């Protein structure tokens, strides 16, 4: 595609891009920030007091809409919607799709009936599974009959499960009424641009009114439909999350504009995700060498958009058939073959009782952090550091360094701890790589952190981490992540003051390339 020719996509402009984004941060913050009062907590883990109780009710156990909930609650996607009505340059329908993380041509798509049975099977096995989403592998609203038939079956069989869907927005205005009818109160729209000039470099064509429309006209129609759909959702009281793929040199700086546009139209949460692009994906961007952002570039853009709008930073860009907590994928346990053999007992009462226990655990996590915060708030320091955490969920430091498939990243300051992202490392641990090969890759993935919290760690990796300037910390094994993080930061400040350690800026880190697949 020649539309890529003028777009810089080599590593040499990374620094320049970052500076431009940081410049925009300053400009954006100046006008975009308002009081905390109207800001709902979800992308961040702010206390629920600042949130409308009706909204909190909708998001509190939705792992994708609440960062805090994602430690405790699981979701699943059913792949009932294979058809799509647009083409994106980061997606290849013939092979596995990178950003939408589609199951691909070899994995199974489901009929609504199969999907409904699978949902009941998962709900019976994983009582903290609270959300069913339809996310493709195409566009759910390009398959309206299959999508809504699935919702209908689940709505009747398991009314306690929240329903959600994601869409590119092209058909959205036609379906808002039906979405409302099925009580779907979370909809995600992928919006990568609000300017067709930018959009033409992302979307080669759309299928619209029985025609294939290309170029800037395609992007213009898509943009208008997305904005109309978002406004209609807001008017209907349906919570809307906006996903944007950050494509350096194409829409990275433009996403600040996208953020303003969707915020003003009532979007609840903005999720800026890194482009995943590699030649083996066979996508236009994979083949023309378009790079994805670095960890620092992504964080700078997310920070710049964090005015009065919540930013989602815990997205795992999962598959359209993912099952489990966001950081895990248990889909292989629930193949159609296995699901058909299962004896499914849907126990609504048992699920409720389990979720009540989860709530107790979750409250304990929040209270422990708040208690730890008391003497930190009196400290004066503008120091900010990142730490990496190995966790299996429940908000605790409970994973062995060597077993971690991902590390969660927290930013620590005198304001406390804040979840700012995650780094996948499991892809590198597969395919016959030995320990010695894996470690440098893990270190590159968390290179911007001063410490890594683990439940346990061996002697060798401990030494390598220390040599790389990353403090391996196992003394908080099985304790709450955020409480431990605040504790650690207080110690860190003390050590810096006493001169025991010298605080230095850390470098950038790698974002893994590859869709989330079952481990």
């Amino acid at each position, binding site marked *: 595609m020649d539309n890529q020719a003028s777009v810089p996509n080599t590593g040499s402009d990374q620094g320049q891009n970052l500076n431009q984004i940081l410049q925009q941060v300053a400009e954006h913050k100046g006008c975009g920030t308002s009081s905390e009062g109207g800001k709902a907590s979800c992308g961040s883990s702010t206390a629920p007091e600042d949130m409308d109780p009706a909204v909190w009710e909708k998001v509190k156990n939705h792992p994708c809409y609440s960062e805090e909930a994602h430690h405790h609650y699981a979701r699943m996607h059913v792949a009932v919607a*294979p*058809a*799509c*009505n647009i*083409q994106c340059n980061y997606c290849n*329908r*013939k092979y596995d799709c990178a950003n939408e993380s589609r199951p691909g*041509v070899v994995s199974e*798509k489901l009929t609504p009936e199969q999907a409904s049975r699978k949902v009941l099977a998962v709900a019976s096995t994983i009582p903290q599974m609270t959300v069913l989403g339809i996310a493709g*592998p*195409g566009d759910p609203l*390009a*398959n309206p009959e299959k999508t809504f038939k699935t919702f209908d079956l689940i709505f009747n069989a398991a009314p306690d499960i929240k329903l959600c869907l994601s869409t590119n927005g092209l058909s959205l205005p036609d379906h808002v009424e039906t979405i409302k009818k099925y009580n779907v109160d979370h909809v995600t729209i992928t919006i990568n641009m609000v300017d067709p000039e930018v959009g033409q470099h992302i979307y080669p064509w759309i*299928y619209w009114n*029985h*025609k*294939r429309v290309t170029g800037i006209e395609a992007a213009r129609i898509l943009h208008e439909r997305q904005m109309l759909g978002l406004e209609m959702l807001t008017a209907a009281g349906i919570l809307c999350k906006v996903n944007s793929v950050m494509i350096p040199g194409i829409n990275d700086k433009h996403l600040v504009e996208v953020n303003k546009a969707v915020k003003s139209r009532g979007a609840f949460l903005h999720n800026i995700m890194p482009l995943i692009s590699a030649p083996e994906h066979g996508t236009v961007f994979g083949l023309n060498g378009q790079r994805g952002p670095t960890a620092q570039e992504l964080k700078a853009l997310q920070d710049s958009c964090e005015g009065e709008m919540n930013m989602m930073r815990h997205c795992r860009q999962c598959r359209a058939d993912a099952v489990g907590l966001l950081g895990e994928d248990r889909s292989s346990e629930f193949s159609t073959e296995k699901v058909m053999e299962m004896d499914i007992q849907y126990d609504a009462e048992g699920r409720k009782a389990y979720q009540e226990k989860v709530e107790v655990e979750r409250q304990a996590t929040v209270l422990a952090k708040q208690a730890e915060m008391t003497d930190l708030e009196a400290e004066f320091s503008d120091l900010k550091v990142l730490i990496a955490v190995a966790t299996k969920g429940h908000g605790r430091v409970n994973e062995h360094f060597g077993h971690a498939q991902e590390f969660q990243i927290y930013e620590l300051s005198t304001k406390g701890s804040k979840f700012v992202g995650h780094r996948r490392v499991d892809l590198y641990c597969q395919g016959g790589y030995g320990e010695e090969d894996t470690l440098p890759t893990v270190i590159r993935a968390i290179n911007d952190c001063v410490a890594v919290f683990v439940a346990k760690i061996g002697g060798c990796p401990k030494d390598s981490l220390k040599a790389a300037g990353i403090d391996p910390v196992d003394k908080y094994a099985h304790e709450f992540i955020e409480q431990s993080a605040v504790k650690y930061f207080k110690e860190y400040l003390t050590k810096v003051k006493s001169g025991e350690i010298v605080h230095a800026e850390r470098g950038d880190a790698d974002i893994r390339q590859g869709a989330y697949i079952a481990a």
Partner: protein
Amino acid sequence: MAFKIITSQCTACSACEPECPNNAIREKDGTFIIKPEKCTECLGYFDDPQCVAVCPVDDTCVIDNSYPRYVEA
């Protein structure tokens, strides 16, 4: 007189099936096929053949040369 689907290219995404004005497309053995006797190349319905317009893989829905071109009655 008809389009055909190159089986090896078809991702079985099903996008073409509901768009066909002649109901000539159905799933068979994990991929999609066009019934040639039913296909009118969308003549009389749309300016563009719908299966071609919606198919995500280029050059997958193509003219089947083993049939003469469709002529409107």
